């Protein structure tokens, strides 16, 4: 798709030790959300869904490149609301919309349909932040993009490690 890499030498960070993985059972427990500890577990459950997504142009995960970190996910279970904030590796990253699309598709496939999901780039980390955010949250554009076989192949490729 691109002749040269957008970011030829990304910084790869050491993986943090993972907290134990929690099952989706937590999602069903309406009382769990009342304690802060559970909120943390909760975000981690969501994080688990997206941390292993592969970067579109490198053999590293979004977590390896710190595109996604633990505090990237805000969950308000009472309102069935999730917001994911990701950090492109370079501020002119043309892959930002593809990364955002991967995040959206992964959450669409993993979460109960009652969740409303907003996806955005971290404030100040992308040259066309407002434009990228607007596109990622226009569901008509997302729907049209997901009918494009080339784009779907690319997304599926990035998502493959996250389903392992």
């Amino acid at each position: 798709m691109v002749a040269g890499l957008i970011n030829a030498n990304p910084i790869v960070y050491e993986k943090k030790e993972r907290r134990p993985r929690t099952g989706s059972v937590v999602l069903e427990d309406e009382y769990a959300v009342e304690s802060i500890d559970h909120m943390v577990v909760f975000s981690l459950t969501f994080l688990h869904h997206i941390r292993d997504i592969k970067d579109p142009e490198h053999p590293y995960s979004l977590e390896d490149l710190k595109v996604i970190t633990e505090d990237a996910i805000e969950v308000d279970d009472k309102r069935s609301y999730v917001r994911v904030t990701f950090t492109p590796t370079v501020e002119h990253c043309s892959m930002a919309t593809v990364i955002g699309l991967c995040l959206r598709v992964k959450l669409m496939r993993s979460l109960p349909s009652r969740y409303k999901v907003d996806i955005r780039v971290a404030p100040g980390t992308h040259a066309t932040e407002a434009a990228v955010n607007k596109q990622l949250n226009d569901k008509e554009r997302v729907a049209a993009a997901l009918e494009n076989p080339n784009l779907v192949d690319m997304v599926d490729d990035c998502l493959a490690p996250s389903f392992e």
Partner: protein
Amino acid sequence: MASVSEDNLELQEIQKLEGHTDRVWGLAWNPTSGADGVPAVLASCSGDKTVKIWQKSPSTSSFHLKATIEETHTRTVRSCSWSPSGKLLATASFDATTAIWEQVGDDFECLATLEGHENEVKSVSWNASGSLLATCSRDKSIWIWEALPGNEFDCVSVLQGHTQDVKMVLWHPSEDILFSCSYDNTIKVWAEDGDSDDWHCVQTLKEANNGHSSTVWSISFNATGDKMVTSSDDLSIKVWGADIVRVQSGEGYAPWKHLCTLSGYHDRTVFSVHWSREGIISSGAADDAIRLFVENQDDLGDGPMYRLLSKKEKAHEQDVNCVQWGSKESGLLASSSDDCSVKIWKLGPRH
């Protein structure tokens, strides 16, 4: 129907129509159905690439699936619209085409396929007489097509002006004036230059004119056509007015002016608004809710011009994409959703 000034009205779910296998985007009531012994007919279109035709059974008063239009559009069918005569159905698809259908017996036959847009067609609308059709696309353009004898459709004009994809086009209910709204946050008004077949933009309603600050998704008119309502990703609904009598008497163009903004109601994108003949504005949004608004009757001069009449939280399990009042039967509302269903509602006294 009870007076709209009564506050004890609510939407009651009459029926849930299931059959689509993907999100349902658009709805269109056949304008000639639903009265004088003609059973109400509703078309719904979906991400499953099909259009379904639902008909009310005279004996049971419930809706049933009458026909499924499939295997023509190769991608999402985003919008559908009946011609004023109720004889033709136009369908706009992400496959970049618009198809024209005619009912033959129990089947729908494709009479024409309108090609020209570079990519996704998002909306299609017939003018009041049925002689003109407008389509719009992610390619930022609006095409005006003339319906000719023999089911020919000729493109008479391509309108450029929006700087981003055009979400919806809608003709004025009586005048040949076209309205469009866009991802560029504006609403544009288009009119013809005398007899020259040359269409141009006569007005742009922007954020600076009390307009919307994000994508404008939908447009609707009141029965007399002197007021317009629009809905947006900025979570607001706006009402606009124009001296349409001036236009109708041939005195020239009457500009549209902002009358009021309804905000603080929906807390996610308002995808659809539709104004009923009785003056009730319905709105459907990504917060899964449907809300109804009416003009304030007890107006003391400084209060809001419109007030919330009723709301239905959790009208659907997911985003509400379209709301449409029945063309003949008072208080009949249809809604469509990402939850793959269509619902039929009746506005009636609260139990």
